[in-house]
């Protein structure tokens, strides 16, 4: 009789579903995956919808090129138009002002490799569209834009109004907005006393708490195959971001042109396939983990191979992985034992 009861109990535990809510939506121009653990389905759905609405608002606020409604540009689009016409200071929301200040600081720290002011260059290469086709770029236009050196420091912000001293500055926060969205989502969830969640915006992921008894596990995409090359655990507040040449690119004459452009040359970077950075929670008075996970992978991607470690250090990144154009893998010392390789016999070089 005892054994029957035991058997029954064991069978029943298999019947209960774990309290995991999972939603997938196309928001922010990309795929957003929200997992919330430990809340009722109803409450989780409410929380997720709120987050998605916030994302939608942010998307409308920051869209770099598309009019978001009847020929009305986003807040950022309007600012860009004002910059181009060298108008007098345009009023901007405090949130945008804070974003721009943060982005400027990061741009300086990265020695200009992270440069959201090169919107015109990005559009010249055709990457400010929803779908990319191969284009033979106007080399002269690129040269002129590089020469004009649009920089974040050309923007002056005072009393929530901004103007640019350089009319070639066009803001494209594509490498910043996803990370920023992750941070506001986490801030919201923490305010709502949610302990465990995992948010994925277009591949950029931030974790809150754990998945039940075990940490949240994240797969890292192989740059050339539809599988994950490794997994790693994301602890509370940690974020992971990857810049790659395999999501937004076009091929021309057998050569790949990806969307990550070196501001110094004006041309897409060709010596790397992907860079992944892992970021711990940051102190409140600095750029947050989400933003860093989005921003920091770009300078490392752009920098020449011998300077990659320096580029990482400049932004305080201790955990990163690079897969270069020849598919050689480089892993920073601190990240080596965080990665669980999914394919056997993976060769990689440890960076000091």
């Amino acid at each position, binding site marked *: 009789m005892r054994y029957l009861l035991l058997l029954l109990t064991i069978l029943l535990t298999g019947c209960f579903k774990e309290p995991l809510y999972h939603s997938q939506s*196309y928001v922010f121009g990309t*795929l957003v995956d929200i997992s919330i653990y430990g809340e009722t389905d109803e409450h989780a759905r409410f929380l997720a919808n709120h987050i998605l609405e916030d994302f939608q608002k942010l998307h409308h606020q920051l869209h770099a090129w598309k009019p978001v409604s009847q020929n009305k540009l986003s807040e950022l689009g309007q600012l860009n138009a004002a910059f181009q016409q060298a108008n007098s200071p345009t009023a901007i929301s405090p949130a945008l002002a804070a974003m721009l200040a943060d982005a400027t600081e990061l741009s300086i720290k990265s020695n200009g490799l992270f440069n959201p002011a090169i919107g015109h260059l990005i559009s010249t290469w055709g990457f400010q569209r929803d779908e990319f086709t191969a284009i033979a770029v106007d080399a002269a236009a690129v040269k002129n834009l590089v020469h004009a050196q649009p920089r974040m420091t050309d923007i002056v912000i005072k009393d929530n109004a901004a103007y640019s001293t350089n009319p070639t500055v066009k803001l494209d926060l594509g490498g910043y907005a996803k990370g920023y969205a992750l941070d506001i989502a986490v801030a919201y969830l923490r305010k709502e006393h949610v302990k465990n969640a995992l948010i994925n915006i*277009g591949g950029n992921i931030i974790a809150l708490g754990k998945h039940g008894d075990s940490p949240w596990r994240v797969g890292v995409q192989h740059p050339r195959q*539809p599988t994950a090359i490794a997994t790693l655990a994301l602890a509370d507040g940690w974020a992971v971001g990857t810049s790659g040449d395999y999501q937004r690119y076009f091929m021309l004459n057998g050569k790949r042109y990806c969307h990550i452009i070196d501001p110094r040359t004006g041309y897409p970077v060709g010596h790397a396939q992907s860079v992944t950075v892992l970021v711990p929670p940051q102190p409140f008075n600095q750029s947050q983990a989400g933003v860093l996970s989005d921003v920091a992978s770009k300078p490392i991607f752009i920098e020449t191979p011998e300077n990659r470690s320096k580029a990482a250090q400049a932004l305080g990144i201790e955990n990163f992985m690079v897969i270069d154009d020849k598919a050689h893998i480089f892993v920073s010392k601190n990240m080596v034992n965080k990665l669980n390789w999914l394919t056997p016999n993976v060769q990689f070089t440890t960076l000091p």
Partner: protein
Amino acid sequence: MFNLPRYLKLLNLTSLNPKLFNPKLFSPKLFNPKLFNPKLITQHVLFGDWLVLVAGVFCVLYLFQTLWSGEHAAKVQIRLSDKIYATYSLNQQREVHVHGKLGDAVIVIAQGKARFSKSPCTTQYCVHQGWLSHAGQAAICLPNQISLELIGDAKPYDSLNY
């Protein structure tokens, strides 16, 4: 020589004579517990027998490892925008037509695999992902808002960073 009808007649089992069985073959001595003495048993196991036995063990272990690893994806989940459009078993040959934001996409399911075979998007990244065959693998058509994911027992991660 060996003629089937003859044997069937010989095996007239309705009148089976018990004496046909040699009871000595199954004498109680065979089930004597003393017989489970290891030395007595292994004296019949020759060198080649041990080889076959060990090979058999490795074979069984290998089979458990490969076939029970859980990587074995059983289903493919097709999502359209923010809803689950359909979930199909991978054990079939099937073409699924999904109407997305941009137009019609065609998803092909073959024994144990699935892929985007046609898509109205210009970049065709989804089609270039090729065949998905393991649990956790996914292909996404962002412009058309359709995603494929293979579901198996053991998903190696909660979310994919790309």
